């Protein structure tokens, strides 16, 4: 039996989808290790405590609320100190983070602070004799390593979308937690959060991603992707490295080997040839649609559905069809 502490990720005062996936993953860890409690640490500025309910709905037995102005923007130093103190004062077998930019950073700090191992970015896992044995993509996702971690607590991070968030309702139980280090004393200070220029749905959380490549020919033509994203209503727009290098889209929108990994339910690649560097960041998407003029483009090899055609014709037609389907 092992209790699990998860770090529930929030951004700009709102819980991220990955936080609920983390709760589901933690429930699985707890149950596979013979039953245990799942505690979710929710840190943020004023009002973050009111966002705790979904964590209980997805299976957190306790929500540890760290509500403090010093966490309105991310504060990894003070958060690391607080997590370390909770772990040292509690009885956690596992500490679980989402393998996002913040979660990757935080999990490394926590593991080093506690002097314990970390298995990162798991796409699947099981508990065998108390040890977490998990799958971690390596070599740009071209090989999958099965890693085993020993020691207590074990720190793990789980790849976004690898676990489907599943409701497991509990009565909401919250505990107020004080920061273990003065948040104002952190040496590294986050002074601003810049949301991407699509702004609406976070690329890492969006169930649908519309990605554009060089085939769109100019920055302004990304309006076609934005329009399709609007038609879906739950979509974010991403881009290839060529596009972000040219400054057509912000750097943070890059998907691929040198950008972000995304794994949405639906990935629509528009005017993307499918270089392996790009495929490395999206090939685990559930359903992939490719639209490209070149019928021999490598993107069609990973796409479930392909349309050979001009993005300037197909995207507007698809936008109208999606609007019609959503309206129906």
């Amino acid at each position: 039996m092992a209790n699990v502490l998860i770090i529930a990720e929030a951004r700009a005062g709102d819980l991220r989808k990955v936080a609920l996936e983390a709760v589901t993953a933690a429930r699985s860890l707890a149950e596979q290790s013979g039953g245990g409690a799942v505690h979710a640490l929710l840190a943020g500025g004023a009002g973050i405590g009111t966002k705790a309910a979904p964590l209980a709905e997805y299976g957190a037995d306790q929500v540890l609320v760290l509500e403090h102005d010093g966490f309105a923007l991310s504060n990894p130093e003070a958060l690391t100190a607080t997590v370390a103190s909770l772990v040292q004062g509690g009885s956690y077998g596992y500490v679980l983070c989402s393998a996002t930019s913040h979660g990757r950073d935080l999990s490394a700090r926590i593991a080093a602070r506690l002097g314990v191992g970390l298995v990162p970015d798991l796409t699947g896992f099981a508990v065998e004799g108390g040890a977490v044995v998990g799958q971690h993509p390596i070599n740009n996702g071209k090989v999958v390593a099965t890693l085993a971690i020993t020691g207590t607590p074990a720190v793990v991070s789980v790849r976004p979308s690898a676990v489907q968030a599943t409701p497991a309702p509990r009565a909401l139980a919250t505990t107020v937690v004080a920061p273990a280090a003065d948040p104002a004393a952190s040496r590294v200070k986050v002074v601003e959060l810049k949301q991407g220029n699509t702004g609406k749905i976070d690329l890492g959380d969006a169930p649908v991603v519309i990605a554009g490549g060089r085939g769109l020919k100019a920055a302004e033509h990304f309006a076609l992707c934005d329009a399709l994203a609007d038609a879906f209503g739950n979509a974010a727009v991403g881009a290839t490295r060529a596009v972000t290098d040219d400054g057509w889209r912000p750097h943070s929108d890059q998907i691929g080997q040198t950008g972000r990994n995304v794994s949405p339910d639906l990935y629509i690649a528009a005017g993307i040839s499918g270089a392996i560097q790009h495929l490395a960041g999206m090939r685990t998407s559930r359903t992939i649609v490719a639209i490209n003029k070149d019928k021999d483009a490598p993107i069609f090899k990973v796409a479930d559905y392909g349309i050979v055609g001009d993005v300037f014709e197909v995207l507007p037609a698809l936008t109208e069809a999606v609007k019609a389907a959503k309206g129906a």
Partner: protein
Amino acid sequence: MKIAVCIKRVPVMEVKFAITADGSRYDETGLKYDINDFDLWAIEAALQLKEKAGTGSVHVLCLGPDAAQEQIRKAMAMGADSGTLLQTDARVYDGLAVARALATELKDGGYDLILFGRIAIDSMNQMTGPMVAELLGLPVVTNVFKLDLAATTGRAERVLEGASEVVEFPLPAVLTIDDGLNKERLPSLKGIMAAKKKPLDVKPAALGEQAVVVRSMALPTERAAGRIVGEGAAAVPELVRLLQTEAKVL
């Protein structure tokens, strides 16, 4: 400005990997190696900072096999002044074990800045930089794609999923460098010649106990072959039907 850059020798990824018969690792036969992409940008950042300051040094630190001297020499050919190889033949997947060995080596170096690439594209661990910072008690900023340094402080922008953060930090500090900060220079012929004479220290890596071990390796399951739904806008209704009824994502 005294800068250390931690680099890694990684396989060139434009190949189809094979798994050994015992399923324990990927076959290294015939693989080519280079400096990890992100580490090239860390080296470039260090060189630019030194050039801008007009003074200082760039030291390269690498944990890896003896052959990784090639990668240290390449970094020197780009302009790094000196290098250390922490030699091991082990394929280490425990990031904390690596971080401890690096931290021990860096501890008394008096560096103003210690740079890492954001992630090594082979292990994809993305943890060594912040772990070293933690072990050394230094402030750390990960995923840096914009950077401005003053004498004793810095300002950076770090990339998140579809967003970014602007951060301020004091020196000395650890930074992990992301794509977008710069484009690495190619070694010049003159640089390659000069690199041969630069000091390269080789010592055994002090790897302690490892909490993370590889059980097995496998190739990812291939995606089932897809299909071309049709050509041009005329194929859209059929695509939408498939997304609704077959993929059930609309």
